[in-house]
């Protein structure tokens, strides 16, 4: 079918306004937040309901046409890039169907923005725990597809731990529900399998998210160190005490300075080599004892100073610096690559040293701002993607950093997904049969490989499996 004919069909299904054909309109969808990659979709379709998603997907299925689901496009791994493929944008599906305050569950459409959901449940004294730094823009559908995390996932867990059920439009247009909003079904954990499938298993049309009561009390501390490794040791010491902080975030000097030079200045000491932002929450009773323990751990590890936020304003300010750190770093150069990798917590000091050495060797400036309690690193590099030489050095440094994390027993992504960006590292992390098994699982959902083609698992691994399948 020609593109024009397809567009005409789609217009008839969902209305002419919601099918974007003009180059200028499609260009708005030619990238996500991963710098240096552009891909122009052939068409952009914006269905307005579950039923419209189904009818669009059925039409595409009938003609064997691939598609890429897209939320807000804040992904950092190129997951929603669509090269000459149809993009199904989900931003119009922004309804919160219900909030069940008694059972701590909300039923939402996939295009609901994370922060909007947070605001909607707040009056009930509830919150949705996963809080990616992009929460002002990213969607629940995108969070489910990437299994998103955030600073408070140290204590409360990632998206996987907070989704009760999803309704999925499979790539053939069939609507199925995985999980349950009211009970704990047995059988295979298809809901768990779907979370983090990066748009390759179909489109989430409905999501039932679990909510938590807002903790009655909270304390936020900022400790500053004259060496990164001291801060890293403090992290291990805190965790070893048995306290599970709600968050334990680290920022290095380059990040601190970028933040302090921006409109998000949070009052971080600019001469510190690193700051640790720690938060504990829960019952009021015993919370101050935890704060004292954390303070002691920090001081014993060499902290120069430990500051405890005494007012809500002060606390919000400390957090603002952390939440807006990417934005602040983004001001330094035209592009910012936000990396994502995880290492065992005890390996943080060694890996941070290795990262600094790699950056120096390639003449690139690596800034670290990350979820230290989880060992989830975000080594970021500000650069100019249009400068070929600089880009090449950035890429070389990044692949060495990934390898260093793998060598330390870690993984290549803790929350941003594989998408396109990390495809090249999958072979280093997984054996051929492991990748082949992933392909086999994907083919159950999408035998024609039309949903977000070419992402997550390198294509050669799938060919292997195809050759071996019974």
């Amino acid at each position, binding site marked *: 079918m020609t593109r024009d004919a397809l567009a005409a069909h789609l217009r008839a299904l969902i209305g002419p306004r919601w099918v974007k054909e003009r180059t200028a309109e499609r260009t708005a969808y030619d990238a996500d937040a991963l710098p240096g990659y552009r891909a122009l979709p052939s068409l952009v379709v914006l269905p307005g309901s579950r039923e419209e998603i189904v009818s669009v997907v059925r039409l595409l299925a009938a003609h064997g046409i691939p598609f890429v689901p897209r939320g807000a496009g804040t992904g950092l791994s190129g997951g929603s890039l669509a090269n000459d493929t149809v993009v199904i944008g989900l931003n119009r599906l922004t309804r919160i169907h219900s909030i069940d305050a008694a059972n701590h569950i909300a039923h939402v459409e996939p295009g609901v923005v994370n922060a909007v959901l947070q605001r909607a449940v707040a009056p009930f004294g509830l919150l949705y725990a996963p809080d990616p730094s992009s929460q002002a823009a990213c969607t629940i559908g995108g969070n489910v597809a990437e299994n998103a995390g955030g600073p408070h996932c140290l204590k409360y867990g990632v998206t996987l731990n907070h989704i009760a059920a999803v309704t999925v439009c499979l790539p053939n247009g069939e609507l199925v529900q995985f999980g349950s909003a009211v009970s704990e079904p047995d059988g*295979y954990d298809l809901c768990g399998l779907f979370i983090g499938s990066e748009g390759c298993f179909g489109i989430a049309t409905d999501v039932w998210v679990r909510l938590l009561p807002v903790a009655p009390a909270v304390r936020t501390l900022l400790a500053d160190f004259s060496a990164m490794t001291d801060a890293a040791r403090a992290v291990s010491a805190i965790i070893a005490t048995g306290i599970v902080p709600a968050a334990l975030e680290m920022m290095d000097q380059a990040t601190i300075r970028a933040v302090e030079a921006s409109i998000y200045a949070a009052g971080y000491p600019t001469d510190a080599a690193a700051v640790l932002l720690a938060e504990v929450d829960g019952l009021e009773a015993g919370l101050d004892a935890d704060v004292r323990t954390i303070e002691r751990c920090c001081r014993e590890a060499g902290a120069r100073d430990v500051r405890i936020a005494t007012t809500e304003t002060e606390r919000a300010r400390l957090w603002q610096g952390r939440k807006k750190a990417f934005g602040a770093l983004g001001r330094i150069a035209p592009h910012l690559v936000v990396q994502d990798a995880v290492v065992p917590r005890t390996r943080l000091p060694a890996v941070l040293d290795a990262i600094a050495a790699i950056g120096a060797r390639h003449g690139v400036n690596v800034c670290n701002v990350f979820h230290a309690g989880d060992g*989830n690193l975000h080594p970021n590099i500000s650069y100019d993607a249009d400068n070929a030489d600089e880009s090449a050095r950035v890429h070389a440094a990044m692949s060495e950093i990934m390898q260093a994390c793998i060598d330390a027993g870690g993984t290549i992504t803790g929350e941003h997904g594989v998408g396109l960006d990390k495809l090249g590292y999958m072979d280093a992390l997984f054996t051929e049969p492991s990748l082949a098994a992933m392909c086999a699982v*994907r083919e159950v959902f999408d035998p024609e490989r039309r949903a977000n083609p070419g992402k997550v698992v390198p294509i050669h691994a799938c060919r292997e499996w195809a050759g071996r399948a019974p």
Partner: protein
Amino acid sequence: MLADLADRIAHAHATRTPLRIRGGGSWLHAGRPCEGEPLDVSALSGVIDYEPGDLTLTAYAGTTLQELDRITGAERQWLALDPCAAPTATIGATVATASDGPLASTFGRVRDLVLGLECITGTGERVRAGGRVVKNVAGFDLVRLHTGAWGTLGVITEVTMRLRARPEQDDVFAICADDRTSLERRLAPLADLPIAPLALELLNAPLAASLGFEPRLCLLVRLGGNAERVAAQRRALDALGDVHEIALDRLHALRAADPTDHLVANITHEPSRFTDTWRHVSAFCDAHALWQPRVRGSIRRGLVRVSIPMPDEGAAHVGEWASFVRSIAPPGAHVTWEQLPMHAWPHVPCSVADRISTGLRRALDPAHILNRGLLGEPT
């Protein structure tokens, strides 16, 4: 050992020989029909990697929960998972059956605690999923797929679990009040109490009696944390009635495996309907003249677990098994049977009969040799 196991499975695949996977062996008595030559993985045991500072532990699947408890306990850590199981139950089987207990309301279910695993598929391929770090989204989540799959998609050979530091203080309190107060009235104050218990379990009188408590409805509250936090919560409990501290090992009795002649079911529904679920299950047992059912409930999770003594003559009260296995749960709730007599299992609705589940089975075990029949799946 692993290579041999993989070869054996590859051979079984080639010859289409069904295999019945055996860990500690305790599940074999659950009555579930399953065909196959025994494939014993209990010898595959021992800790592979344990770095206390990382709060993660990697072990072979045949390592017993008891052994893990001992090793992590020495570092003041634990795998915060307390399923009903024999001490010889293995971590592999715990993951394969997704078995949990009262602590799950606080620390999560098995799916929330497994970080990675290695398994051998039904074609004899050794496959790794997840990793050894606490956060990981590299590739599709086959860890969740194998968790609770009862070995039907692969023989789990190794798992990495998330551990916790043991709370500084870990105390259990029992509140047993007279049975005339309605369940609602007894549970209502819980919602507003400033407590965040590690576990909150309601026990019926026969279960309380079997644990050596007074034979009355009994609320068990497990409190953990620093001394100040535990003390404040302990004081708050006074609003519920007479509070008795009990030794932690009394609670361990709750973890004992159910006698093999018991019917065991877990019924889950919305937490707000907990008392309805509880009453439905109790009334169901009464109606069938099933004496002395031991019932307990994880209140915040909306889960009611029932263990019903079922000597041979008891089966006479059951009537039709087909309706029995379904009607123990109120409408809208879900029942997961753990133990039933062999002839009752065919009446349990199969939960892996949908197109995706059968497709996954075909993809990972094309000759349908692993634990065939165990999930009541169509052959």
